[in-house]
């Protein structure tokens, strides 16, 4: 995929990504900004991913501050009409457990 990130083929449980729901980075994921975007490393699954531009990085880092993924995209300057590749990329991150639903983590805390 020539999209906004590359991630490994997801394994294990699959998460359905709902862009109208709230999401956050998995607490075991580290984000390292790079000139091209960012590197993501999941200490639990030992998987490495790449965010392929800085806007995507802003979206991912600000997910927690917004009620849902679409709002996070808008806040990062991505209009509704241009959101498709971003939401797709977020969906792939959710599938590989890099992102988790916000409520599920708030509930266990």
């Amino acid at each position, binding site marked *: 995929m*020539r999209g906004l990130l*590359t991630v490994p083929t997801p394994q294990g449980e699959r998460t359905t990504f709902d862009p109208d729901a709230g999401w956050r980075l998995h607490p075991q994921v*580290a984000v390292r900004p790079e000139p091209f975007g960012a*590197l993501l490393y999941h*200490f*639990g699954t030992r998987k490495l991913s*790449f965010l*392929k531009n800085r806007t995507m990085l802003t979206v991912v880092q600000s997910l927690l501050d917004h009620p849902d993924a679409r709002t996070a995209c808008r806040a990062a300057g991505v209009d509704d009409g241009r959101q498709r590749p971003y939401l797709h990329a977020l969906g792939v991150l959710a599938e590989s457990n890099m992102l988790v639903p916000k409520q599920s983590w708030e509930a266990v805390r």
Partner: protein
Amino acid sequence: MTAVVPGLIEQFEQGLGAPICLTWELTYACNLACVHCLSSSGKRDPRELSTRACKDIIDELERMQVFYVNIGGGEPTVRPDFWELVDYATAHHVGVKFSTNGVRITPEVARRLAASDYVDVQISLDGATAEVNDAVRGYGSYAMAIRACENLADAGFTNVKISVVATRHNVDQLDEFAVLAGRYGATLRITRLRPSGRGADVWDDLHPTAEQQVALYRWLVANGEQVLTGDSFFHLSGLGEPGALAGLNMCGAGRVVCLIDPVGDVYACPFAIHDRFHAGNVLSDGGFDHVWKNSPLFRELRGPQSAGACGSCGHYDGCRGGCMAAKFFTGLPIDGPDPECVQGHGAPTPAAERHKPRPAGDHSHGCRKSGPVPLTLTKRPPQRLCTESPV
């Protein structure tokens, strides 16, 4: 790791602000004497980094956000402070993957490892049978590795890695390795034999034949991400479609990976322990971060590279000319084909006629160091002049 789009490969070739991961050989001491040891290990170097110096490096890696280190040696677990350093690294957000021949993986250690979420264990095994393994790694090493796998499995440690260096004698055992790994719930990791360290002496006899390379490539493609490779087979990319081989298919030396050796010397990669690929020292050159960012060697490696004799080859985009260390230690030009080039361009001159650089250090057991030969001097004067013959 997944196949990565070309745009990102070009970014990586220009280097990152910090390595994605790095190899850290903690000691040259080893209980074994594998014939292909990439670091010519055996005896401890008296200048090896202190516990404090190691912790300082970990602090620096944490600041640089290096996600994990591949700890090796030598046999790293024979360092008395090994577990202390593992705990220190994981407590400082630096994940640890360590390679071992299994010598210290007792049931007790296995239970301790099973309790940690951030440590990966790679057990080295170079034959699916004791006969094939022990010929390379030494008598009893197969049993030792298997015992370690059993101890880890019994302790509930999941997903141990069984790490295999592909040789002429074991590439026909790949399916047997898979069965063996399955027995312990392990993941197979297959990597390329390099002519580095003592490997330089055995490479001609041990590296897989051209036919075996093809079979190996097909096996790796068929098994995809089920098998780890350390992304070490990019020189075989030309055997199939681009991206067919899982992983980051490029040379990461000095760009996204590097090596820190037991005395703090930084090299471009673990297979390149030679002055030509020496970037600096963490103690004497201002710390690891400084060496990583500013070493002239690393800057050179991140600049445009000449394709040399490979420039006209249609496969260059796939293999990028292959492995720098493999070329260097077999006496081939760096800007030319890999000695295992799938097009057969790697052997323009007979191997015997090439000048092969020697690895930087030899820590082998029983190796003879150059320099003055120590003489036993007797304090008693000779009883008669002719007792001490001058001839």
